[in-house]
């Protein structure tokens, strides 16, 4: 029998990193405080002790340099898995990601490629300082040439991160810090991967399709308990490229859709989902597609942030409204 442990998301990520580093000597982990300190969330705990200074690298405080050098490391035959400490500190990396990492294969007609992973914790709900609670997935998802992955639980976190590390292209791996330690799941100790680009139907249903990713999946699960409809709950998992097939099939069946995200609304991932569904399931739709999102303002400091992030009650209410349309 395969040994199985009950792990949290952060432990599952740690396990994936360890597993991939054991499997492939070209994998190196770098970032601020990822080494001796094991990362501010302990996601890289124990790796420095095990793999040493040359594979688990504490860098100076320089996000542009970290991602720029990671591009160079990738070009030089290594597999950098770099970390931004929080969502708001990955922003200085956008220039190198948009203008280089995402285009190196494209620009060179396949001569070079840029297989790197950028991991960072994202989202609110941990009572943190400003710039520690943002949900910036749209910036990455809008950028051609990047893949964007967001796990919602420990099993997927391990399998998706393994896939991200093995992927031949740059992958942005966003970790829902609000549920880093809130969810425990059985996670096999042996290696496995969960494929990128595939949404997961968490629960089948026939009345309405609810689509979410990351920490909002938990809120949706809780919302389900508050309603008596037959709900199809889908975890998007990979935001880009998006598994529109699974989404469209579901909405063709249910005729209704609620998309739940933490990020601000304007021009976001939920807009793309709604645009695609409204087009591809046009004749099946029995109610307008509902987007339950953050507001078009910065996520508030923690005293107010739970008004910003939709909770299970708000989600349940919106499901109800869509059903009663």
């Amino acid at each position: 029998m395969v040994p199985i442990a009950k792990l949290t998301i952060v432990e599952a990520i740690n396990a994936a990193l360890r597993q991939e580093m054991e499997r492939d000597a070209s994998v190196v982990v770098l970032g601020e405080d990822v080494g001796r300190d094991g990362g501010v969330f302990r996601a890289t705990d124990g790796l420095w002790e095990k793999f040493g200074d040359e594979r688990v690298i504490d860098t100076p405080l320089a996000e542009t340099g970290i991602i720029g050098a990671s591009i160079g490391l990738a070009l030089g035959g290594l597999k950098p898995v770099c970390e931004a400490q929080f969502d708001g500190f990955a922003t200085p990396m956008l220039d190198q990601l948009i203008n280089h990492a995402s285009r190196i294969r494209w620009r060179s007609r396949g001569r070079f490629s840029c297989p790197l992973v950028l991991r960072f914790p994202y989202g609110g709900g941990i009572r943190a300082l400003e710039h520690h609670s943002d949900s910036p997935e749209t910036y990455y998802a809008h950028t051609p040439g990047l893949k964007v992955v967001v796990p919602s639980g420990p099993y997927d976190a391990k399998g998706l991160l393994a896939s991200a590390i093995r992927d031949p292209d740059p992958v942005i791996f966003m970790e829902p810090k609000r549920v880093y330690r809130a969810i425990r799941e059985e996670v096999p100790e042996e290696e496995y991967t969960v494929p990128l680009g595939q949404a997961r139907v968490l629960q089948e249903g026939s009345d309405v399709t609810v689509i979410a990713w990351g920490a909002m999946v938990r809120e949706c699960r809780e919302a389900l308990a508050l309603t008596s409809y037959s709900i199809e709950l889908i975890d998007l998992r990979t935001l880009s490229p998006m598994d529109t097939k699974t989404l469209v099939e579901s909405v063709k069946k249910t005729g209704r859709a609620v998309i739940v995200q933490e990020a601000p609304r304007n021009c976001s991932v939920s807009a793309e989902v709604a645009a695609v569904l409204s087009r591809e399931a046009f004749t099946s739709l029995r109610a307008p597609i509902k987007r339950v999102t953050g507001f078009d303002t910065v996520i508030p400091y923690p005293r107010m942030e739970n008004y910003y992030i939709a909770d299970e009650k708000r989600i349940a209410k919106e499901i109800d409204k869509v059903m009663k349309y």
Partner: protein
Amino acid sequence: MRKTLAKFSVEYLQILDENGRADETLMPVLGDARVREFYEQMVRGRVFDETALALQREGRMGTYASIRGQEASNVGPALAMDKEDWLFPAFREDASMVARGVSMEALLRYWGWDERGNDVRDVNVFPVAVPVSTQIPHAAGFAWAMKLRKKRVATLVYFGDGATSKGDFAEALNLAGVFNLPVVFVCQNNQWAISVPRAKQSAAETLAQKAIAYGFPGIQVDGNDVFATYVATKEAIRRAKEGNGPTLIECFTYRMSDHTTADDAKKYRDAKQVAEWEKKDPIKRLQLYMKAKGLWSESYERALREQTRKEVDEAVKKYESMPPAQIEDMFRYTYAEMTPQLKEQLGYLKKSIEETKSTGGANR
């Protein structure tokens, strides 16, 4: 032909040594009251810091970055500034902000999860900047505005040793050099950027020498010597106001606490190093000096502590009795005027709170 094109050197300044002995040739002219002010501001910083740490531990306030050990680097520059000058802090300058007139209550509010803590009128101090180094170009730009507007105002910006590795630092210092801006760059080199020691932050022997890359002076000072941080800043502010451009000041100090309350420094640094630096404590040092000069006594200390305790306790009370912000505040400040989208979203949220009886807030 091989020849030397240019030569540079980096100077170091210390006035008050670890044993509280002042180098009288370098000592600024300060009256007794002024010397006491240095001491009292540092004590205010220390007591505030201890209280903030306690509040955080008790869950009454959020993540907090302690200034313990860095009081001289906080207070000296603040007291060297004139009233009309402006301060751009990073996030480890509470004693500096307080010395410049920011209320302790506002700071508690800031660290206590409330944007209203940033709304501090009538003092020339900007809010805390969380993303490391990003405030440095703001300060350069602000100094530029003062220069273009012909105002005799200096701008002082703080940042850490870690911040000197970031591009914003480099771009801002370069701009300041090119446009000869009236700005003072104060680096609190506290030897650590979370777990990364100074030696791994840069291969440069000193951080002061980074100024050479931008064509203006840099100096390293003993950051636990409040007279040295004061004098160096005073000189830099004079240079700025006389149109002689920017200065980089590296305050060589030490972070005595964990990085923040979310950190555990035992994981990555040796207690011995901390103990060594304990001996260099900036407050103790000034106390010895004052004692020798007859400016310090047990009763003075007791009274000071008592008064400071009262001040801090009152700030805590005010902080904790502040009524919650309004839901509207979430939407009101994104633009000067709420957009149609925001109006709609505010309406929706209000309705949703009613419908779901959501309590929201940090209490969830």
